[in-house]
């Protein structure tokens, strides 16, 4: 049987292929180019960072080549781009996948930039870190494009394996081993749920394609049980309450920059796949309306519990982990609306736009955590931030911008993101209450986001804080994230329009 691939097939996998090739290149480069003849994990290894950043830039550019993923949505004004099914239905070449891929690629680039100095300070600067980020990034991009059950599962497993290793990358940290083990066991467990759900859905429709989820002839019992199990699986991956117990431990034990990568990239691609699933299931199929209500309940408990649990944290990584859980809750609102589908098919766009905001503010916050901790776990406590503004005004400023944006303050892109999501919920009708809960929950969250800011600006410094200074990569990351967070508040409209066009490429 000859296999004929057309140019669309190559255009669809080009970004993922570039990312994976970059991962391999970094791994191999680390073997040969060493400082003084042997591998020195305490050196900064700027060449690895350069290879990684160049690979990410190439992959980003590949989204915009003619017939590339985002080309249509980017160039045609207001017109949803044509989309094509490629690789016999395993993947789809559309702007939705392209938009998510763009966020993942930028996250990979920023993580690479910010990691060199931090890992070197820990004496753990090994090429495998960047290799895992890029190999996992390739799988994440494929997950964002995946449109059948098998390709979704393969992509999720591939990316999860890389993230488990990253979570325990500091092998000698007890917390790292604990977090990685918990993450691995619960992750494997959730994959079981996902797979069983997929088996039920396949049993109901007899097809592996996601489009078959909307089939009206499918067996309703099998289909609804299968969908619920799939939602449980995704709930674990995005860290929604009550499937969130691994999140704080995994983030606390992971290297700070890897925690930022886990928070952003895993969430982006899991939400992309989840939205594809709920949009397909919501389109006139046999999926029960109760699934929408369950999703809404999941969103409510995730927002409330995530924010309440974050209130009492004294460890900044755990605080950001619970904040990440709360943000999963906000992100579930557009998922609920996308399942409902009416009155506006564009409602899922809120999730895409919010993920852009989430990328900038989360990577920014975790980069500051990496700088301040500087090779010492004790410096991840809140007290370490006392008086930081006096010694390091720029770092304190970047942290402030990120935290205010996470809290959703006007003047930052986080405000626009929350506004979009809550506005869509208000106009949706039956899910108006999600907007109320969301607004109340974000009010609560302001308290714990302000705590580090108060510590940085109004507390006296206890001991002298040495941070990863003079590292160009870290500084550049902070400049980019804080500039992006503020700039997108003023010119977020074009990004929002692009996200609307992207979501139209799957809802039609």
């Amino acid at each position: 049987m000859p296999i004929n691939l057309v140019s669309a097939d190559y255009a669809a996998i080009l970004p993922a292929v570039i990312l994976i090739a970059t991962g391999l290149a970094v791994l191999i480069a680390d073997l040969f180019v060493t400082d003084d003849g042997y591998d020195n994990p305490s050196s900064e290894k700027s060449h690895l960072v350069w290879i990684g950043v160049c690979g990410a830039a190439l992959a980003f550019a590949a989204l915009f080549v003619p017939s590339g993923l985002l080309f249509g949505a980017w160039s045609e004004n207001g017109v949803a781009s044509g989309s094509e099914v490629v690789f016999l239905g395993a993947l789809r070449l559309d702007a939705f996948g392209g938009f998510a891929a763009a966020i993942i690629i930028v996250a990979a680039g920023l993580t690479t930039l910010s990691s060199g100095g931090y890992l070197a300070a820990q004496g753990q600067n090994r090429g495998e870190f960047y290799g895992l980020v890029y190999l996992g990034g390739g799988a994440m991009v494929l997950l964002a494009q995946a449109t059948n059950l098998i390709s979704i599962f393969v992509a999720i497993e591939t990316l999860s394996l890389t993230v488990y290793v990253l979570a325990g990358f500091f092998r000698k940290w007890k917390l790292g081993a604990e977090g990685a083990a918990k993450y691995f066991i619960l992750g494997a467990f959730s994959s079981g749920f996902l797979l069983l759900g997929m088996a039920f859905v396949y049993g109901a429709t007899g097809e592996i394609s996601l489009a078959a989820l909307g089939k009206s002839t499918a067996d309703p019992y099998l289909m609804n049980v299968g969908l619920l199990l799939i939602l449980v699986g995704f709930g674990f991956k995005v860290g929604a309450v009550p499937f969130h117990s691994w999140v704080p431990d995994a983030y606390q034990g992971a290297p700070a920059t890897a925690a930022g990568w886990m928070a952003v990239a895993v969430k982006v691609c899991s939400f992309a796949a989840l939205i594809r699933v709920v949009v397909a299931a919501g389109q006139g199929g046999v999926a029960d309306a109760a699934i929408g209500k369950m999703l809404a309940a999941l969103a409510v408990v995730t927002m409330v519990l995530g924010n309440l649990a974050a209130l009492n944290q004294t460890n900044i990584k755990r605080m950001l982990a619970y904040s990440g859980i709360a943000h999963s809750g906000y992100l579930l609102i557009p998922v609920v609306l996308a399942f409902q589908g009416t009155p506006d098919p564009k409602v899922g766009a809120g999730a895409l736009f919010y993920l852009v905001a989430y990328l900038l503010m989360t990577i920014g916050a975790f980069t500051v955590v990496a700088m301040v901790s500087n090779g010492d776990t004790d410096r991840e406590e809140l007290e370490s931030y006392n008086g930081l503004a006096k010694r390091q005004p720029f770092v304190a400023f970047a942290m402030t911008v990120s935290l205010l944006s996470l809290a959703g303050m006007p003047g930052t892109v986080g405000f626009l993101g929350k506004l979009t999501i809550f506005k869509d919920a208000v106009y949706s009708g039956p899910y108006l209450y999600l907007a109320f809960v969301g607004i109340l929950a974000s009010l609560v969250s302001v308290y714990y986001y302000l705590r580090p800011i108060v510590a940085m600006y109004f507390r006296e410094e206890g001991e002298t804080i040495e941070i990863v200074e003079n590292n160009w990569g870290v500084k550049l990351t902070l400049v980019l994230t804080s500039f992006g967070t503020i700039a997108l508040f003023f010119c977020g409209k074009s990004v929002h329009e692009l996200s609307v066009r992207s979501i139209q490429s799957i809802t039609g």
Partner: protein
Amino acid sequence: MSVDLIPLVTFGLLALVVAVGALAASELLGPRRRDPEKLTSYECGVPIFETAREPFHIRFYLIAILFILFDIETVFMVPYVTLFRDLGVFGLVEMGTFVAILGLGLLYCWKRGALEWD
């Protein structure tokens, strides 16, 4: 019971009778002359020199993982060979990429010292 299932059930019962019957017959009719030599475990004809229930060196795991890596390569290689002509240049490039990635893996292991025994 549906008629279609009768052959299946018959087959299952026959299999059970044959399996249990053979074991039982051998147990009941077979001569038994035990001696210490015969009661030791059989290990390819070589006399056993120690118990197998002890911790192994971590190196063995590494070698085992590498073995699986290249074992899988063979598993993918065999079906490719049967379709070699039909797949043409596309198949060649595809397989070349696959083997090249595995080759990079081998290079990685080599340079990291996974193949050194001491």
